[in-house]
């Protein structure tokens, strides 16, 4: 995937994954790298940056299968950032679709 394309989109996707429920890092990392050409190891720095920017908070929660897991929770600020990213993405993808229809699929 084009690097310029990924700009911002990865932020959007990882925030979107945590929109309804808190997720632990492993889930997010595996889900992201399954969809995009991203090394799993690069998702953690991304999560780290989004946490630093105040879009995520993290906490540890006990799990049934062993040591506690680090969960990522969307903050209200993260939520509104996600909403604005989504609306940006929608208008972008509609514009691209329209041009594809106009130019290719007529």
């Amino acid at each position: 995937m084009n690097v310029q394309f990924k700009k911002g989109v990865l932020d959007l996707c990882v925030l979107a994954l945590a929109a309804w429920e808190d997720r632990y890092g492993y889930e997010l990392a595996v889900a992201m790298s399954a969809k995009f050409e991203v090394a799993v190891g690069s998702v953690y720095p991304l999560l780290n940056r989004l946490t630093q920017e105040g879009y995520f908070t993290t906490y540890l929660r006990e799990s049934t299968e062993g040591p506690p897991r680090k969960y990522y929770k969307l903050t209200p600020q993260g939520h509104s950032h996600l909403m604005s990213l989504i609306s940006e993405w929608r208008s972008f993808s509609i514009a691209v679709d329209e041009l594809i229809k106009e130019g290719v699929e007529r």
Partner: protein
Amino acid sequence: MNREQYLQQLWNLLSPVPERTRKEWMYDYEEHFRLAAEHGRLEEEAASELGDPKLAAKELLLGYRVAEAESKGGSLPSVSRAVFAAVGIGFFNLVFVLGPYIGLLGVLFGFWAASAALVLSVVPVLYEGWFGDALTGPQAISAAMVLLSLGLLAGAGTYKLTRGFMRLTLKYLQLNTRVMKGRKS
């Protein structure tokens, strides 16, 4: 590479960072191996899907440097460290980012030197007025005052220019750290 090797290598690569932050970062990777094992994956598999520890370390460091430069209000050493971290990660072409950055720093340095020279030139002018014959005392004093005020003005201007340049550089870095270069092997 197995778990031990991966974590050890990452730990060593993150040595420029204070231990507390480093441990926080390592936690994610340790947990990754643990959960991968719970999902029945081999250590080697988990390590290879994590990718190159060098890349992960560089990405973590870049985020850290940019945040650090921000919190220090864009001071020259902190911004420069962030620029070097960005170049190290290969986000930027060495020639196209580092070159102009150093060039502009050179220009700013020139301005600083010129301002300092104006201020310092007050000393020989006063000396000349006092002991020499080229200038009378009052002439020397007014010339010195003109030079001093020009120097201070130039210095204030250069200060503003430097701050602005640092802020712009930081903005540029922040925009560009949104791009991730990590690729699956």
